[in-house]
Protein backbone atom coordinates (compact mmCIF):
# COMPACT_ATOMS: atom_id res chain seq x y z
CA UNK A 1 0.00 0.00 0.00
CA UNK A 2 0.82 3.66 0.02
CA UNK A 3 1.77 3.83 -3.65
CA UNK A 4 -1.87 4.20 -4.67
CA UNK A 5 -2.77 7.87 -4.27
CA UNK A 6 -6.27 8.79 -3.09
CA UNK A 7 -8.82 9.06 -5.91
CA UNK A 8 -9.97 12.58 -6.61
CA UNK A 9 -13.57 12.94 -7.73
CA UNK A 10 -14.30 15.91 -9.97
CA UNK A 11 -17.82 16.93 -10.94
CA UNK A 12 -17.93 18.57 -14.34
CA UNK A 13 -21.00 20.49 -15.48
CA UNK A 14 -21.81 21.46 -19.06
CA UNK A 15 -25.11 22.96 -20.17
CA UNK A 16 -24.80 21.95 -23.83
CA UNK A 17 -26.93 18.98 -24.92
CA UNK A 18 -25.13 15.64 -25.34
CA UNK A 19 -25.18 15.39 -29.17
CA UNK A 20 -23.55 18.83 -29.62
CA UNK A 21 -19.96 19.29 -30.76
CA UNK A 22 -19.22 21.11 -27.50
CA UNK A 23 -20.34 18.14 -25.43
CA UNK A 24 -18.51 15.58 -27.56
CA UNK A 25 -15.26 17.42 -27.05
CA UNK A 26 -15.88 17.69 -23.30
CA UNK A 27 -16.38 13.93 -23.13
CA UNK A 28 -13.03 13.42 -24.89
CA UNK A 29 -11.37 15.85 -22.50
CA UNK A 30 -12.76 13.92 -19.53
CA UNK A 31 -11.73 10.54 -20.90
CA UNK A 32 -8.23 11.80 -21.51
CA UNK A 33 -8.04 13.39 -18.05
CA UNK A 34 -9.03 10.12 -16.41
CA UNK A 35 -6.69 8.08 -18.57
CA UNK A 36 -3.64 10.29 -18.17
CA UNK A 37 -3.98 10.46 -14.40
CA UNK A 38 -4.16 6.69 -14.39
CA UNK A 39 -7.55 6.68 -12.75
CA UNK A 40 -6.42 8.97 -9.92
CA UNK A 41 -9.00 11.49 -11.15
CA UNK A 42 -12.52 10.15 -11.46
CA UNK A 43 -15.00 12.42 -13.20
CA UNK A 44 -18.75 12.62 -12.70
CA UNK A 45 -20.03 14.37 -15.76
CA UNK A 46 -23.34 16.24 -16.03
CA UNK A 47 -24.38 17.61 -19.42
CA UNK A 48 -27.58 19.12 -20.78
CA UNK A 49 -27.71 21.35 -17.68
CA UNK A 50 -28.71 18.41 -15.49
CA UNK A 51 -26.69 19.72 -12.53
CA UNK A 52 -26.21 23.41 -13.32
CA UNK A 53 -28.11 25.39 -15.93
CA UNK A 54 -26.08 27.91 -17.91
CA UNK A 55 -26.81 30.98 -15.71
CA UNK A 56 -26.10 29.05 -12.50
CA UNK A 57 -22.79 27.57 -13.65
CA UNK A 58 -20.24 30.12 -12.45
CA UNK A 59 -21.82 30.37 -8.99
CA UNK A 60 -22.10 26.60 -8.85
CA UNK A 61 -18.39 26.30 -9.49
CA UNK A 62 -17.67 28.96 -6.89
CA UNK A 63 -19.73 27.17 -4.23
CA UNK A 64 -18.59 23.65 -5.04
CA UNK A 65 -21.83 22.32 -6.53
CA UNK A 66 -19.58 21.35 -9.45
CA UNK A 67 -15.80 21.45 -9.62
CA UNK A 68 -15.47 22.45 -13.25
CA UNK A 69 -18.12 24.26 -15.28
CA UNK A 70 -18.68 25.35 -18.86
CA UNK A 71 -20.79 28.43 -19.60
CA UNK A 72 -20.36 32.01 -20.86
CA UNK A 73 -20.11 35.37 -19.15
CA UNK A 74 -23.26 36.98 -20.56
CA UNK A 75 -25.35 34.66 -18.38
CA UNK A 76 -24.18 36.65 -15.39
CA UNK A 77 -24.40 40.11 -16.86
CA UNK A 78 -22.46 42.72 -14.90
CA UNK A 79 -20.28 40.25 -13.05
CA UNK A 80 -17.33 40.23 -15.45
CA UNK A 81 -17.30 43.77 -16.89
CA UNK A 82 -13.71 43.73 -18.16
CA UNK A 83 -14.11 40.47 -20.04
CA UNK A 84 -17.30 41.94 -21.56
CA UNK A 85 -14.95 43.96 -23.78
CA UNK A 86 -14.44 40.72 -25.72
CA UNK A 87 -18.11 40.47 -26.68
CA UNK A 88 -18.20 43.92 -28.26
CA UNK A 89 -18.62 44.15 -32.05
CA UNK A 90 -14.95 44.72 -32.77
CA UNK A 91 -15.04 42.70 -35.97
CA UNK A 92 -13.34 39.43 -34.99
CA UNK A 93 -13.37 37.92 -38.47
CA UNK A 94 -13.95 34.22 -37.69
CA UNK A 95 -14.78 31.79 -34.94
CA UNK A 96 -11.17 30.66 -34.81
CA UNK A 97 -9.96 34.23 -34.26
CA UNK A 98 -12.61 34.83 -31.58
CA UNK A 99 -11.53 31.68 -29.72
CA UNK A 100 -7.87 32.66 -29.74
CA UNK A 101 -8.42 36.25 -28.77
CA UNK A 102 -10.45 35.45 -25.65
CA UNK A 103 -7.46 33.56 -24.25
CA UNK A 104 -4.95 36.17 -25.38
CA UNK A 105 -6.95 39.04 -23.88
CA UNK A 106 -7.42 37.22 -20.60
CA UNK A 107 -3.76 36.27 -20.30
CA UNK A 108 -2.58 39.77 -21.13
CA UNK A 109 -4.87 41.77 -18.81
CA UNK A 110 -5.70 39.14 -16.14
CA UNK A 111 -8.96 40.82 -15.04
CA UNK A 112 -9.35 40.87 -11.23
CA UNK A 113 -12.99 39.79 -11.58
CA UNK A 114 -11.74 36.21 -12.06
CA UNK A 115 -9.52 36.12 -8.96
CA UNK A 116 -11.61 33.38 -7.35
CA UNK A 117 -11.33 31.15 -10.40
CA UNK A 118 -8.82 29.15 -12.29
CA UNK A 119 -9.94 29.44 -15.90
CA UNK A 120 -8.74 26.29 -17.61
CA UNK A 121 -9.31 27.86 -20.99
CA UNK A 122 -11.51 30.26 -22.90
CA UNK A 123 -13.45 29.55 -26.04
CA UNK A 124 -16.01 31.38 -28.14
CA UNK A 125 -18.80 30.84 -30.62
CA UNK A 126 -18.29 31.82 -34.24
CA UNK A 127 -19.59 35.29 -35.16
CA UNK A 128 -23.35 35.74 -35.01
CA UNK A 129 -25.19 36.24 -38.29
CA UNK A 130 -28.68 37.57 -38.97
CA UNK A 131 -31.01 34.59 -39.48
CA UNK A 132 -34.30 36.09 -40.62
CA UNK A 133 -37.70 35.31 -42.13
CA UNK A 134 -37.47 38.26 -44.54
CA UNK A 135 -34.32 39.11 -46.55
CA UNK A 136 -31.98 41.75 -45.07
CA UNK A 137 -30.09 43.19 -48.05
CA UNK A 138 -29.44 46.59 -46.52
CA UNK A 139 -29.61 48.06 -43.05
CA UNK A 140 -32.98 49.72 -43.73
CA UNK A 141 -34.58 46.29 -44.15
CA UNK A 142 -34.04 45.74 -40.44
CA UNK A 143 -36.39 48.57 -39.56
CA UNK A 144 -39.57 47.11 -38.14
CA UNK A 145 -38.10 43.65 -37.61
CA UNK A 146 -37.98 42.02 -34.20
CA UNK A 147 -34.77 40.02 -33.75
CA UNK A 148 -34.10 37.68 -30.85
CA UNK A 149 -30.89 38.90 -29.22
CA UNK A 150 -30.27 39.22 -25.48
CA UNK A 151 -27.78 41.45 -23.64
CA UNK A 152 -24.99 43.08 -25.64
CA UNK A 153 -26.24 41.36 -28.81
CA UNK A 154 -29.53 43.13 -28.18
CA UNK A 155 -27.75 46.49 -27.88
CA UNK A 156 -26.12 45.81 -31.26
CA UNK A 157 -29.44 44.88 -32.84
CA UNK A 158 -31.08 48.02 -31.46
CA UNK A 159 -28.22 50.10 -32.90
CA UNK A 160 -28.96 48.73 -36.39
CA UNK A 161 -32.52 50.03 -36.16
CA UNK A 162 -34.23 46.69 -35.56
CA UNK A 163 -36.05 45.83 -32.36
CA UNK A 164 -34.28 43.40 -30.04
CA UNK A 165 -36.19 40.80 -28.03
CA UNK A 166 -34.51 38.67 -25.36
CA UNK A 167 -36.73 35.60 -26.03
CA UNK A 168 -35.41 32.55 -24.12
CA UNK A 169 -33.50 30.28 -26.48
CA UNK A 170 -35.93 27.41 -25.75
CA UNK A 171 -38.82 29.49 -27.14
CA UNK A 172 -37.03 31.01 -30.11
CA UNK A 173 -37.85 28.34 -32.69
CA UNK A 174 -41.55 28.56 -31.93
CA UNK A 175 -41.41 32.36 -31.81
CA UNK A 176 -39.81 32.53 -35.28
CA UNK A 177 -42.18 29.99 -36.79
CA UNK A 178 -45.21 31.96 -35.63
CA UNK A 179 -43.72 35.38 -36.40
CA UNK A 180 -43.51 36.58 -32.79
CA UNK A 181 -39.95 37.46 -33.74
CA UNK A 182 -38.68 37.89 -37.32
CA UNK A 183 -35.26 36.44 -36.79
CA UNK A 184 -32.40 35.62 -34.51
CA UNK A 185 -28.79 36.80 -34.17
CA UNK A 186 -26.76 33.60 -33.71
CA UNK A 187 -24.01 31.66 -35.57
CA UNK A 188 -24.52 29.44 -38.62
CA UNK A 189 -24.37 26.27 -36.48
CA UNK A 190 -27.76 27.12 -34.92
CA UNK A 191 -29.41 26.64 -38.33
CA UNK A 192 -28.92 22.95 -37.66
CA UNK A 193 -28.56 22.55 -33.88
CA UNK A 194 -31.61 24.67 -33.03
CA UNK A 195 -33.28 23.92 -36.39
CA UNK A 196 -33.68 27.59 -37.21
CA UNK A 197 -33.27 26.75 -40.92
CA UNK A 198 -36.70 25.10 -40.77
CA UNK A 199 -38.37 28.39 -39.97
CA UNK A 200 -36.09 31.20 -41.21
CA UNK A 201 -34.98 31.22 -44.83
CA UNK A 202 -32.52 34.12 -45.04
CA UNK A 203 -29.09 34.65 -43.57
CA UNK A 204 -27.20 37.93 -43.76
CA UNK A 205 -23.54 38.17 -42.83
CA UNK A 206 -22.76 41.67 -41.59
CA UNK A 207 -19.15 41.42 -40.48
CA UNK A 208 -18.86 44.81 -38.69
CA UNK A 209 -21.37 43.59 -36.11
CA UNK A 210 -19.64 40.21 -35.67
CA UNK A 211 -19.75 39.25 -32.01
CA UNK A 212 -18.96 36.19 -29.93
CA UNK A 213 -19.56 35.27 -26.30
CA UNK A 214 -16.55 34.53 -24.11
CA UNK A 215 -17.13 30.93 -22.95
CA UNK A 216 -15.15 29.62 -20.02
CA UNK A 217 -14.11 26.27 -18.61
CA UNK A 218 -13.78 27.39 -15.02
CA UNK A 219 -12.69 25.85 -11.77
CA UNK A 220 -12.73 27.33 -8.27
CA UNK A 221 -9.18 28.50 -7.56
CA UNK A 222 -9.20 26.87 -4.13
CA UNK A 223 -10.17 23.54 -5.63
CA UNK A 224 -7.48 23.80 -8.29
CA UNK A 225 -4.85 24.70 -5.67
CA UNK A 226 -5.86 21.69 -3.62
CA UNK A 227 -4.93 19.27 -6.41
CA UNK A 228 -1.62 17.38 -6.28
CA UNK A 229 1.12 18.82 -8.48
CA UNK A 230 1.09 15.97 -11.00
CA UNK A 231 -2.66 16.27 -11.51
CA UNK A 232 -2.34 20.04 -11.91
CA UNK A 233 0.34 19.43 -14.52
CA UNK A 234 -1.81 17.05 -16.51
CA UNK A 235 -4.78 19.40 -16.24
CA UNK A 236 -2.67 22.31 -17.51
CA UNK A 237 -1.29 20.33 -20.42
CA UNK A 238 -4.72 19.10 -21.42
CA UNK A 239 -6.15 22.60 -21.09
CA UNK A 240 -3.59 23.87 -23.56
CA UNK A 241 -4.46 21.11 -26.05
CA UNK A 242 -8.19 21.38 -25.68
CA UNK A 243 -8.10 25.15 -26.03
CA UNK A 244 -6.82 24.58 -29.57
CA UNK A 245 -9.19 21.69 -30.28
CA UNK A 246 -12.16 23.64 -29.02
CA UNK A 247 -11.26 26.61 -31.24
CA UNK A 248 -11.19 24.31 -34.25
CA UNK A 249 -14.44 22.65 -33.13
CA UNK A 250 -16.38 25.94 -32.87
CA UNK A 251 -15.04 26.92 -36.25
CA UNK A 252 -15.81 23.53 -37.83
CA UNK A 253 -19.41 23.08 -36.59
CA UNK A 254 -20.35 26.13 -38.66
CA UNK A 255 -20.04 24.12 -41.88
CA UNK A 256 -22.70 21.47 -41.15
CA UNK A 257 -24.94 24.33 -40.01
CA UNK A 258 -24.41 26.22 -43.24
CA UNK A 259 -24.87 23.08 -45.35
CA UNK A 260 -28.04 22.16 -43.50
CA UNK A 261 -29.31 25.65 -44.28
CA UNK A 262 -28.48 25.15 -47.94
CA UNK A 263 -30.47 21.90 -48.00
CA UNK A 264 -33.40 23.72 -46.39
CA UNK A 265 -33.27 26.34 -49.12
CA UNK A 266 -31.85 29.16 -47.02
CA UNK A 267 -30.57 32.11 -49.04
CA UNK A 268 -27.17 33.52 -47.96
CA UNK A 269 -26.81 37.26 -48.38
CA UNK A 270 -23.49 39.11 -48.37
CA UNK A 271 -23.45 42.89 -48.04
CA UNK A 272 -21.83 45.48 -50.27
CA UNK A 273 -19.06 47.59 -48.73
CA UNK A 274 -21.34 50.68 -48.57
CA UNK A 275 -23.88 48.68 -46.60
CA UNK A 276 -21.16 47.29 -44.35
CA UNK A 277 -20.11 50.84 -43.52
CA UNK A 278 -23.60 51.54 -42.17
CA UNK A 279 -23.37 48.51 -39.92
CA UNK A 280 -19.95 49.78 -38.80
CA UNK A 281 -21.61 52.97 -37.50
CA UNK A 282 -24.01 50.84 -35.46
CA UNK A 283 -21.12 48.78 -34.08
CA UNK A 284 -19.13 51.89 -33.12
CA UNK A 285 -22.06 53.20 -31.12
CA UNK A 286 -22.20 50.04 -29.00
CA UNK A 287 -18.45 50.16 -28.37
CA UNK A 288 -18.63 53.81 -27.29
CA UNK A 289 -21.55 53.01 -24.96
CA UNK A 290 -19.38 50.35 -23.34
CA UNK A 291 -16.54 52.83 -22.85
CA UNK A 292 -18.94 55.29 -21.21
CA UNK A 293 -20.40 52.61 -18.97
CA UNK A 294 -16.95 51.44 -17.85
CA UNK A 295 -15.81 54.99 -17.14
CA UNK A 296 -18.92 55.21 -14.98
CA UNK A 297 -17.78 52.03 -13.22
CA UNK A 298 -14.54 53.78 -12.29
CA UNK A 299 -12.11 52.44 -14.89
CA UNK A 300 -9.72 55.02 -16.42
CA UNK A 301 -10.58 55.77 -20.03
CA UNK A 302 -6.99 55.14 -21.18
CA UNK A 303 -7.10 51.65 -19.76
CA UNK A 304 -10.41 50.84 -21.50
CA UNK A 305 -9.16 52.23 -24.83
CA UNK A 306 -6.03 50.15 -24.30
CA UNK A 307 -8.10 46.95 -24.14
CA UNK A 308 -10.00 47.87 -27.28
CA UNK A 309 -6.82 48.79 -29.16
CA UNK A 310 -5.26 45.48 -28.17
CA UNK A 311 -8.34 43.53 -29.26
CA UNK A 312 -8.41 45.19 -32.68
CA UNK A 313 -4.71 44.78 -33.36
CA UNK A 314 -4.53 41.26 -32.02
CA UNK A 315 -7.55 40.16 -34.04
CA UNK A 316 -5.86 41.38 -37.22
CA UNK A 317 -2.70 39.43 -36.31
CA UNK A 318 -4.72 36.34 -35.52
CA UNK A 319 -6.48 36.52 -38.87
CA UNK A 320 -3.08 36.48 -40.58
CA UNK A 321 -2.16 33.49 -38.42
CA UNK A 322 -5.34 31.72 -39.47
CA UNK A 323 -4.48 32.30 -43.13
CA UNK A 324 -1.03 30.86 -42.47
CA UNK A 325 -2.47 27.77 -40.76
CA UNK A 326 -5.05 27.50 -43.56
CA UNK A 327 -7.96 27.04 -41.18
CA UNK A 328 -11.18 27.51 -43.17
CA UNK A 329 -14.25 29.36 -41.84
CA UNK A 330 -17.81 30.04 -43.00
CA UNK A 331 -17.28 33.79 -42.60
CA UNK A 332 -14.36 36.21 -42.95
CA UNK A 333 -12.29 37.35 -45.96
CA UNK A 334 -12.09 35.11 -49.03
CA UNK A 335 -8.63 33.73 -48.08
CA UNK A 336 -10.10 31.88 -45.10
CA UNK A 337 -13.36 30.74 -46.68
Amino acid at each position, binding site marked *: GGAQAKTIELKISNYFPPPSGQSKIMVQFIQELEARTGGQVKVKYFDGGSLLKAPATIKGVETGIADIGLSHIEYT*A*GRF*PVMEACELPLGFATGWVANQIMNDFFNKFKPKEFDKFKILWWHANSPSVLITTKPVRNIEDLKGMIIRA*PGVMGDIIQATGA*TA*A*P*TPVSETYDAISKGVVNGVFTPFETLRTFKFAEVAKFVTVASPINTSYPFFIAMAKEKYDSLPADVKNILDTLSGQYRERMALMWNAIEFPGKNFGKEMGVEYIELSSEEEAKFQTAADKVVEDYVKKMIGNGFPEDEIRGWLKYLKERSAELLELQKFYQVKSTVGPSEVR
Partner: protein
Amino acid sequence: MTFLDKFEKFNRKISMSMEWVGVAALFLMMIITTVDVIGAKVFLKPVFGALDIMAIAQLLAMSFAVSATLILGRHVQVEFFVMLLPDKAVAIIDCIVNALGFLLFVLIIWRLFAFGHDLNIDGEVSSTARIPLYPFAYGAAVACIPACLSYLYMFIDSIKKVIKK
Protein backbone atom coordinates in the same frame (compact mmCIF):
# COMPACT_ATOMS: atom_id res chain seq x y z
CA MET B 1 -54.78 36.71 25.39
CA THR B 2 -51.49 34.93 25.90
CA PHE B 3 -48.26 36.15 24.41
CA LEU B 4 -48.31 33.21 22.01
CA ASP B 5 -51.76 34.16 20.71
CA LYS B 6 -50.65 37.75 20.22
CA PHE B 7 -47.58 36.54 18.39
CA GLU B 8 -49.74 34.40 16.11
CA LYS B 9 -52.17 37.21 15.43
CA PHE B 10 -49.41 39.67 14.70
CA ASN B 11 -47.72 37.21 12.38
CA ARG B 12 -50.93 36.49 10.52
CA LYS B 13 -51.54 40.19 10.05
CA ILE B 14 -48.04 40.77 8.68
CA SER B 15 -48.36 37.80 6.29
CA MET B 16 -51.70 38.95 4.94
CA SER B 17 -50.38 42.48 4.41
CA MET B 18 -47.27 41.20 2.66
CA GLU B 19 -49.44 39.12 0.39
CA TRP B 20 -50.75 42.30 -1.20
CA VAL B 21 -47.23 43.04 -2.42
CA GLY B 22 -47.44 39.70 -4.19
CA VAL B 23 -50.86 40.54 -5.60
CA ALA B 24 -49.49 43.79 -7.01
CA ALA B 25 -46.50 41.98 -8.51
CA LEU B 26 -48.71 39.32 -10.14
CA PHE B 27 -50.98 41.98 -11.58
CA LEU B 28 -47.93 43.86 -12.85
CA MET B 29 -46.81 40.70 -14.69
CA MET B 30 -50.06 40.64 -16.63
CA ILE B 31 -49.97 44.37 -17.41
CA ILE B 32 -46.30 44.36 -18.49
CA THR B 33 -46.80 41.44 -20.88
CA THR B 34 -49.94 42.92 -22.37
CA VAL B 35 -48.32 46.32 -22.92
CA ASP B 36 -45.18 44.61 -24.24
CA VAL B 37 -47.12 42.52 -26.77
CA ILE B 38 -49.22 45.41 -28.01
CA GLY B 39 -46.21 47.71 -28.03
CA ALA B 40 -44.07 45.24 -30.00
CA LYS B 41 -46.69 44.27 -32.59
CA VAL B 42 -48.50 47.57 -33.13
CA PHE B 43 -45.88 50.22 -32.44
CA LEU B 44 -42.66 48.19 -32.80
CA LYS B 45 -41.82 49.46 -29.35
CA PRO B 46 -41.73 46.62 -26.86
CA VAL B 47 -41.39 47.43 -23.17
CA PHE B 48 -37.68 47.79 -22.49
CA GLY B 49 -36.62 44.91 -20.26
CA ALA B 50 -40.10 43.37 -20.11
CA LEU B 51 -38.70 39.88 -19.51
CA ASP B 52 -36.42 41.16 -16.76
CA ILE B 53 -39.37 42.81 -15.04
CA MET B 54 -41.46 39.63 -15.45
CA ALA B 55 -38.76 37.53 -13.78
CA ILE B 56 -38.31 39.95 -10.90
CA ALA B 57 -42.06 40.48 -10.42
CA GLN B 58 -42.60 36.73 -10.39
CA LEU B 59 -39.93 36.25 -7.73
CA LEU B 60 -41.60 38.88 -5.56
CA ALA B 61 -45.14 37.61 -6.24
CA MET B 62 -44.33 34.05 -5.24
CA SER B 63 -42.14 34.82 -2.24
CA PHE B 64 -44.49 37.43 -0.77
CA ALA B 65 -47.34 34.95 -0.97
CA VAL B 66 -45.57 32.05 0.71
CA SER B 67 -46.28 33.07 4.30
CA ALA B 68 -49.98 33.65 3.73
CA THR B 69 -50.38 30.38 1.83
CA LEU B 70 -48.62 28.53 4.63
CA ILE B 71 -50.85 30.04 7.32
CA LEU B 72 -53.95 29.33 5.24
CA GLY B 73 -52.85 25.74 4.72
CA ARG B 74 -52.76 26.07 0.93
CA HIS B 75 -49.60 24.03 0.55
CA VAL B 76 -50.49 20.51 -0.46
CA GLN B 77 -49.95 17.79 2.14
CA VAL B 78 -50.90 14.16 2.58
CA GLU B 79 -53.61 13.91 5.24
CA PHE B 80 -54.93 10.38 5.32
CA PHE B 81 -52.14 8.57 7.15
CA VAL B 82 -51.97 10.99 10.08
CA MET B 83 -55.75 10.90 10.39
CA LEU B 84 -55.54 7.21 11.25
CA LEU B 85 -53.30 7.82 14.26
CA PRO B 86 -54.19 8.60 17.90
CA ASP B 87 -54.06 12.25 19.00
CA LYS B 88 -50.90 11.85 21.03
CA ALA B 89 -48.99 10.44 18.07
CA VAL B 90 -50.30 13.19 15.82
CA ALA B 91 -49.13 15.83 18.31
CA ILE B 92 -45.62 14.34 18.37
CA ILE B 93 -45.55 14.10 14.58
CA ASP B 94 -46.64 17.71 14.27
CA CYS B 95 -43.86 18.68 16.62
CA ILE B 96 -41.27 17.04 14.38
CA VAL B 97 -42.72 18.34 11.12
CA ASN B 98 -43.07 21.90 12.40
CA ALA B 99 -39.53 21.86 13.73
CA LEU B 100 -38.29 20.70 10.32
CA GLY B 101 -40.34 23.38 8.57
CA PHE B 102 -38.93 26.00 10.92
CA LEU B 103 -35.36 24.84 10.27
CA LEU B 104 -35.94 24.74 6.53
CA PHE B 105 -37.17 28.33 6.50
CA VAL B 106 -34.34 29.54 8.74
CA LEU B 107 -32.03 28.00 6.18
CA ILE B 108 -33.92 29.49 3.23
CA ILE B 109 -33.93 33.00 4.69
CA TRP B 110 -30.28 32.84 5.66
CA ARG B 111 -29.19 31.50 2.26
CA LEU B 112 -31.34 33.92 0.27
CA PHE B 113 -29.71 36.79 2.18
CA ALA B 114 -26.30 35.26 1.44
CA PHE B 115 -27.33 34.81 -2.20
CA GLY B 116 -28.39 38.47 -2.37
CA HIS B 117 -25.12 39.49 -0.75
CA ASP B 118 -23.19 37.61 -3.45
CA LEU B 119 -25.29 39.16 -6.21
CA ASN B 120 -24.45 42.57 -4.75
CA ILE B 121 -20.71 41.92 -4.38
CA ASP B 122 -20.51 40.43 -7.88
CA GLY B 123 -22.52 43.30 -9.37
CA GLU B 124 -24.97 41.04 -11.18
CA VAL B 125 -27.68 42.76 -13.19
CA SER B 126 -30.63 41.59 -15.30
CA SER B 127 -29.75 40.74 -18.88
CA THR B 128 -31.55 43.51 -20.78
CA ALA B 129 -32.56 46.42 -18.57
CA ARG B 130 -29.42 45.90 -16.43
CA ILE B 131 -31.40 46.19 -13.20
CA PRO B 132 -29.32 45.23 -10.11
CA LEU B 133 -30.65 41.90 -8.88
CA TYR B 134 -29.59 41.78 -5.23
CA PRO B 135 -32.46 43.86 -3.74
CA PHE B 136 -34.97 41.31 -5.01
CA ALA B 137 -33.12 38.38 -3.47
CA TYR B 138 -33.14 40.32 -0.19
CA GLY B 139 -36.85 40.99 -0.74
CA ALA B 140 -37.57 37.29 -1.20
CA ALA B 141 -35.61 36.53 1.98
CA VAL B 142 -37.57 39.10 3.99
CA ALA B 143 -40.84 37.75 2.56
CA CYS B 144 -40.05 34.30 3.99
CA ILE B 145 -39.60 35.59 7.57
CA PRO B 146 -43.29 35.41 8.58
CA ALA B 147 -43.44 31.85 7.21
CA CYS B 148 -40.51 30.99 9.44
CA LEU B 149 -42.21 32.62 12.43
CA SER B 150 -45.42 30.74 11.64
CA TYR B 151 -43.56 27.47 11.81
CA LEU B 152 -42.04 28.59 15.10
CA TYR B 153 -45.51 29.35 16.43
CA MET B 154 -46.88 26.02 15.19
CA PHE B 155 -43.90 24.24 16.73
CA ILE B 156 -44.45 25.79 20.16
CA ASP B 157 -48.16 25.17 19.86
CA SER B 158 -47.59 21.50 19.03
CA ILE B 159 -45.23 21.12 21.99
CA LYS B 160 -47.97 22.49 24.22
CA LYS B 161 -50.33 19.89 22.82
CA VAL B 162 -47.87 17.07 23.47
CA ILE B 163 -47.44 18.19 27.07
CA LYS B 164 -51.17 18.62 27.64
CA LYS B 165 -52.08 15.13 26.44
